[in-house]
């Protein structure tokens, strides 16, 4: 046992036991620095080649007049940025990107907390419940969103049908109005709510899984001690469990924020940014301008507006996560 202590203290067993049997590859493997570089190299090269360089290319595009037809990079300075900023579509897209992300993630964190707690218990039918809850994660977002597009259809929405049946919609003195349909995706407020709803729906399974991981990591004796001390369930949850899983909750939040802020699929399928441009978001607007409209420069400029925001969010969350771990 003394040997073990010594080994952990020096942490370089390869230096301490030079005479041990050499197996094949040991020559290489003994040089840990070299092995570390070899192990790390593929990941670093991949990231530099396919994220780093394209990222700077994106900046170059945003400063140029490149189009799909003529992709030569003639630098035009900040013209793309100033032109983009002046459009009302851009301002709306900027606002909506923030609004959708913040509201959707607030709802997701609240719901995922409740769901993670109820799903951590044992109950009959848990297997089925788990499958049902994970379903939104198990089909491409584009196809899941098509499901919602039908549910929110202007003529055939099943929700409208139910509301009509219970007398809330379509009667002369119905609570939601005499019209037979609410046209969820055709009215500003309802369309905004619909986009948020779909984001909540698709992020919830992942957030729940991450929070369940947090809950299982809490040592049992701490919870049992709290119970022995006479604390009730919700009090334990708020005063013991939640503070302990805050770091991982911020990880869940980080994923949710990134996924929602950078997503263009939900709005692309559900509303195409409409009605008018009331549900436009930055990534979708960048796609419409850059690929659909062929103006690579302006598209890249719009997309670049996402980066500082993402960076700030990530640094903030990772920092607070580490501070929480220390205390």
């Amino acid at each position: 046992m003394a040997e073990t202590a010594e080994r952990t203290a020096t942490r370089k067993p390869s230096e301490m036991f030079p005479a041990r049997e050499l197996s094949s590859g040991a020559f290489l493997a003994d040089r840990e620095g070299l092995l570390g570089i070899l192990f790390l190299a593929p990941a670093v090269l991949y990231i530099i080649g396919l994220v780093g360089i394209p990222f700077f290319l994106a900046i170059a595009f945003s400063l140029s007049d490149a189009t799909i037809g003529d992709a030569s990079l003639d630098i035009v300075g900040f013209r793309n940025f100033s032109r983009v900023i002046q459009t009302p579509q851009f301002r709306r897209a900027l606002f909506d990107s923030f609004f959708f992300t913040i509201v959707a993630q607030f709802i997701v964190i609240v719901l995922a907390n409740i769901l993670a707690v109820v799903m951590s218990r044992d109950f009959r039918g848990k297997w089925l419940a788990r499958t049902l809850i994970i379903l939104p994660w198990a089909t491409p977002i584009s196809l899941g969103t098509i499901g919602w597009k039908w549910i929110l259809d202007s003529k055939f929405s099943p929700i409208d049908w139910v509301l009509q049946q219970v007398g809330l919609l379509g009667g002369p003195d119905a609570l939601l109005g005499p019209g037979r349909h609410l046209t969820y995706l055709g009215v500003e407020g309802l369309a905004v709510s619909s986009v948020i709803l779909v984001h909540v729906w698709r992020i919830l399974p992942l957030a729940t899984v991450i929070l369940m991981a947090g809950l299982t990591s809490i040592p049992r004796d701490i919870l049992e001690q709290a119970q022995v001390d006479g604390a009730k369930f919700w009090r334990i949850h708020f005063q013991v469990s939640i503070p302990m899983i805050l770091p991982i909750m911020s990880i869940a939040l980080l994923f949710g924020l990134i996924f929602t802020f950078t997503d263009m699929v939900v709005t692309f399928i559900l509303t195409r940014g409409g009605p008018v441009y009331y549900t436009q978001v930055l990534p979708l607007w960048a796609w419409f301008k850059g690929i659909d409209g062929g103006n690579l420069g302006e598209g890249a400029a719009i997309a670049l507006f996402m980066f500082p925001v993402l960076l700030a969010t990530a640094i903030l969350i990772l920092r607070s996560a580490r501070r929480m771990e220390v205390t």
Partner: protein
Amino acid sequence: MQAIMPRLKRAGHYLIVAAFCFFTAAPFLIMIVNTFKQDADLYRPQNNPFIYNVPPTLDNLRLLFEGTNYLGFVRNSLFVGVLVVLITLVVAVPAAYALARLAGSWGERAGIAIFLVYLVPPTLLFIPLFRVVTAFGLNDSVWSLVLVYPTISIPFSTWLLMGFFKSIPRDLEEAAMVDGFSRLMAFFKVVMPLSLSGVIAVTVFTFTLTLHEFVYAMTFISSSDSRPLSVGVPIELVRGDVFYWQSLLAAAVIVAIPVGIVYNMFLDRLVAGFTMGAVKG
């Protein structure tokens, strides 16, 4: 009185679970019902949308499987997903191990730096990568997706696995190395078997990313033969202004149910992977 309280509590518990299940699964229920609906039934707003007012039909499935390249899309998605998972594991596992064990004090910071790469989203990179893919001559090929998708999965996977390897005591490998194993063999024989949950978590996460990815697939690929599910289905079943609703909805639920069941089987492993990788690491 005392017997009633636990029962009420249990009922409340089931009620909450049921409400959540309804929220997540109701769209799929409607998809299943609509899969077999005739046009004459579906497109009459006064018809009950939850039952068959006109006898059900298999025509919509026939359109999906025979009138579109649906099976081709499924094949492409699986092909891309499996290859990207393999590439991700081959690249991220050694990188994570190097950062956790071999890199010393700058390993932690390098790990965070790699995680930050995850913040450069596809919606920012698709314009330059469109040019890169063209330069490689991979336009219109599933290989463009195989090449590009690991940029989304490697940063996250490296970060999670790094946490995972850190939670495995160093002593285990070092004991093996004293017994004559090289560092490399100690890694494969001792560390990897203990990291199964982490590998499964990364596999599930990566496969999901490839299944969901839309922007790159939409930008790089313009022929039906090479499209994955996420873009192939909406493009082929929305013709002009006409939505083939029943077939669209069928396409979604046919993927969701088997994938959901497989994910559920691995869910405990996934949770364990996140616990070790993201909490303790």
